[in-house]
């Protein structure tokens, strides 16, 4: 068996069984000859080289810099254009992206990034407009915001949406600040936010940043929020709860409505972490489940590219109770079809004219009005899919995840497989591994098979967690191939194959020493001699 690896990571060159490293299927694809080492810019650049043709400063040019002219060299080496292109092209080849192959990061939703989105975002009418341009010259930009806002409200069944948050965690902060502002407006100072122990780390960090004390709510043996424990903890000091649904165990919180009702009855608000909205888009509206605020990671559900860790974009949908408190600026479409940008300047007027004075915006969270470049991409994706396609997105994402779950459950520990279908992602543990092999060893071995590893060691409620999320843009053939590789690794891990501890063998780097990096941090280039 010597099947080629169609994941696209590297062309096959070395049959696996001949290198003596392991006995798995021949999907190992080393190709080091084309992997080029690339020095740092600071080792190859020169101070007197530039790749941009600009006029030399004239000696007699006026100088009105207030006597603060920079005298010392900055220390910024330059490269010519061909050298620059080569430097970054070589660096790019040491990266794995979704365009290269399957990227099963759970809870992070790496899906196909359509190039139409990129083309649209680069239209000069979107890319080359200034955030403070006279409003009559940017009606099209406001219409994009308004149109996307409309579909986000419609898809979530909520009342309003705050578009300005710059990323998912910024959106969380926005939602929690709306909750706090609403509570303060009714003179109700509460101190505690409840967060399940399976939540993303951003949830407790956000609540703490907004001035709340965080208390954990346990997860049941079924991988869901412990409703009874939650109910018991509710009281007049609880501002709200932060729940992820579908949750980080990959499951739908089937008690969501009961949770919302209980929280509301106790005078609190429900924040939903919408990171996993892609599993339910077009199938379930969080507003119908009693959610008061939920951020939507546009890169996850609506395919805006994540660029090696960002930028993100985190619009927050809000219930009627929280809508009046949303941050400035926001857009509103009046009956004449004109879209207005509401800033400090006209907030009061719009509040009177259009909301009967109800708006009590808590302020501004960012300089301008959000991630416009992401809005154009997300709207393009929504319109490309349409009403039929978006529903299919959720169905295929869930189908793919369950296919992986059921194809692995005979080999890997699946603590919550009996508690119902998974949603967008399948959760596995390392309980059955032999020797002292761990999740990390399987993850690093997956690299040698031509795949990006899944999310590891999260959620914290499961020992050695492995969270696999295929998304809807993967074909059955791609999944079957991944499952074959994953199964062979699981078999080796269960058998305690010690060679896995040294993986990856074929990546641009072998295991990197993260402990040494943290012990004596070197965070910028200081010279060759150090």
């Amino acid at each position, binding site marked *: 068996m010597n099947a080629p690896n169609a994941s696209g990571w590297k062309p096959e060159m070395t049959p696996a069984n001949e290198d003596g490293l392991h006995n798995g299927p021949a999907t190992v694809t080393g190709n080091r000859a084309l992997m080029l080492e690339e020095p740092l810019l600071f080792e190859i650049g020169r101070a007197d080289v530039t790749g941009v043709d600009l006029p030399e400063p004239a000696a007699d040019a006026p100088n009105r810099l207030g006597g603060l002219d920079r005298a010392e060299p900055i220390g910024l080496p330059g490269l010519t254009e061909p050298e620059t292109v080569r430097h970054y092209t070589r660096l790019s080849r040491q990266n794995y992206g979704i365009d290269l192959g399957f990227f099963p990061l759970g809870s992070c939703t790496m899906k196909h990034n359509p190039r139409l989105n990129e083309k649209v975002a680069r239209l000069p009418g979107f890319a080359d407009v200034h955030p403070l341009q006279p409003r009559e010259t940017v009606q099209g930009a406001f219409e994009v915001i308004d149109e996307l806002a409309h579909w986000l409200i419609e898809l979530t069944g909520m009342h309003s949406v705050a578009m300005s948050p710059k990323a998912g965690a910024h959106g969380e902060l926005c939602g929690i600040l709306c909750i706090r502002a609403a509570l303060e407006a009714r003179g109700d100072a509460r101190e505690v936010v409840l967060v399940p122990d399976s939540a993303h780390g951003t949830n407790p960090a956000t609540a703490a940043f907004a001035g709340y004390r965080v208390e954990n709510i346990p997860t049941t043996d079924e991988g869901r929020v412990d409703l009874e424990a939650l109910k018991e903890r509710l009281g007049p000091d609880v501002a709200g709860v932060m729940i992820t649904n579908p949750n980080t165990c990959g499951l739908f919180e*089937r008690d969501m409505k009961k949770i919302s009702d209980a929280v509301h009855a106790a005078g609190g608000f429900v924040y939903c972490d919408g990171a996993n909205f892609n599993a339910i888009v077009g199938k379930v509206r969080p507003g119908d489940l009693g959610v008061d605020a939920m951020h939507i990671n546009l890169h996850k559900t609506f395919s805006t590219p994540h660029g090696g860790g960002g930028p993100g974009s985190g619009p927050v949908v809000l219930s009627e109770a929280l809508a009046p408190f949303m941050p400035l600026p926001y857009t509103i479409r009046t009956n004449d079809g004109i879209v207005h940008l509401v800033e400090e300047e006209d907030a009061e007027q719009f509040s009177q004219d259009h909301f009967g004075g109800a708006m009590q915006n808590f302020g501004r969270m960012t300089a301008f009005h959000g991630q416009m470049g992401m809005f154009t991409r997300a709207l393009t994706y929504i319109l490309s899919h349409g009403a039929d396609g978006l529903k299919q997105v959720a169905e295929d994402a869930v189908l793919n995840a369950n296919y992986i779950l059921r194809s692995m459950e005979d080999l890997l520990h699946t603590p919550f497989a009996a508690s119902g279908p998974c949603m967008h992602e399948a959760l596995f543990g390392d309980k059955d591994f032999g020797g002292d092999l761990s999740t990390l060893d399987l993850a690093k071995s997956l690299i040698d098979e031509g795949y990006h590893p899944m999310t590891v060691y999260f959620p914290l409620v499961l020992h050695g967690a492995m969270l696999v999320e295929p998304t809807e843009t993967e074909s059955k053939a791609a999944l079957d191939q991944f499952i074959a590789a994953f199964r062979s690794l699981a078999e080796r891990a269960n058998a305690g194959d010690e060679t896995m501890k040294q993986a990856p063998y074929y990546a641009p780097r072998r295991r990197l020493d993260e402990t040494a990096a943290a012990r004596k941090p070197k965070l910028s280039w200081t010279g060759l001699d150090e």
Partner: protein
Amino acid sequence: MRYLPLTDTDRSDMLATIGASSIDDLFVDVPEEARLDGPIRGLPMHASEMAVEKHMRRLASKNLAAADAPFFLGAGAYRHHVPASVDHIIQRGEFLTAYTPYQPEIAQGTLQMLFEFQTQVARLYGCAVANASLYDGSTACWEAVAMASRITRRDRVVLSGALHPHYAEVVRTMAKFTDDEIAGAQPAIQPAPDNAGLISRIDEETSCVVVQYPDILGRITDLSPIAEAAHEKGALLVVVNTEPVALGAIKSPGEQGADIVVGEGQALGVGLQFGGPYLGLFAVRDPKHVRQMPGRLCGETKDAEGKRGFVLTLSTREQHIRREKATSNICTNSGLCALAFNVHMTLLGETGLRRLAAENHRLACHAADRLAKVPGVSILNDNYFNEFTLMVGQDARAVVHKLAAKGVLGGVSLGRLYPGVDRLSEGLLVAVTETTTEEDIEALASALEEVLS
């Protein structure tokens, strides 16, 4: 549907493998009453690439692009020429479609880039260490304030009146929910900023002083006396820069004693994009403050074979480990924008950045001299880099709209930035960059002449 590879046969085969009879079996945990039956209200069915592009082009065509008019807007977002290879490189799939480099063995491209970026930013700012970027300049400004409070264990923040009002507003918003108390001043229309007034507001309770450099009116002030005054009282100096190109011409904040330097990196590589995504820059002068920094950091290390490599590091500050005790709730950076900045800066190099800065300043001086000749116009600034304040003798908000009607994007009115402060309403911020031509300047001058007459 072109983005969905499963066929109906695949779907039924997979359902059989799973042991489910229909897709609805996989949604059994969703309560009946919460399930959406039927199509999403009002949303059309899926559309072709051609049809979607047509719709989006129609929306884009309703905007006046900066390149299509004489363009003079700044105030925290600057239009610079971005070399073509920048966009080529950031569109390479291995950069564009990668996730956070949590698996460093196959993310060395992103990680090495971040290490280079951190080095570039630290040097530009005159600091020891920069992080791997934040959302934008305004949120970075708040993070600096929060960090200063953590370091000094004080909670009184002194804001300069000449800090970008949106940045000040972000700080005020966030401070409503923390223990920080804001002592801010209104800006004044005068040739030099009120540094004496600023210094007099620093006391033993002050965690930090926040100043902008060059400031919102374009003025460049010597930061050293402010740094000294702050340090004398045990406070930190936070310096905000919204135009990194300026630092190719003027002294770095770090060398004047700034403790935390933050800014907006959009001007290099990123483009205007109607406000985002932008690039928050964040650096500290004293390396011992690194453990209090927000955001991601990339560090150098070695792999199992002894080769140099890079990893995300000091993550014990971050939310995925520290949860509610993290230095910040931020769990992303502006990675792709940082790459654009990194590539643009590499193309420029020291020589290019200095020439670019000189060209910006030369054209700004020329524009100021020309605009000063327009009857009814005076230039407020004694000094500036590429942005200055015109006094137009009437409400500049109306002037901006009248200029737009003549096809000239003439600047940002102070009235829009400071809606409540009447005495600023006659100010118009005008920014000039290397993309500004002599014809553009002439067009603005003659349009202003007509509008003001």
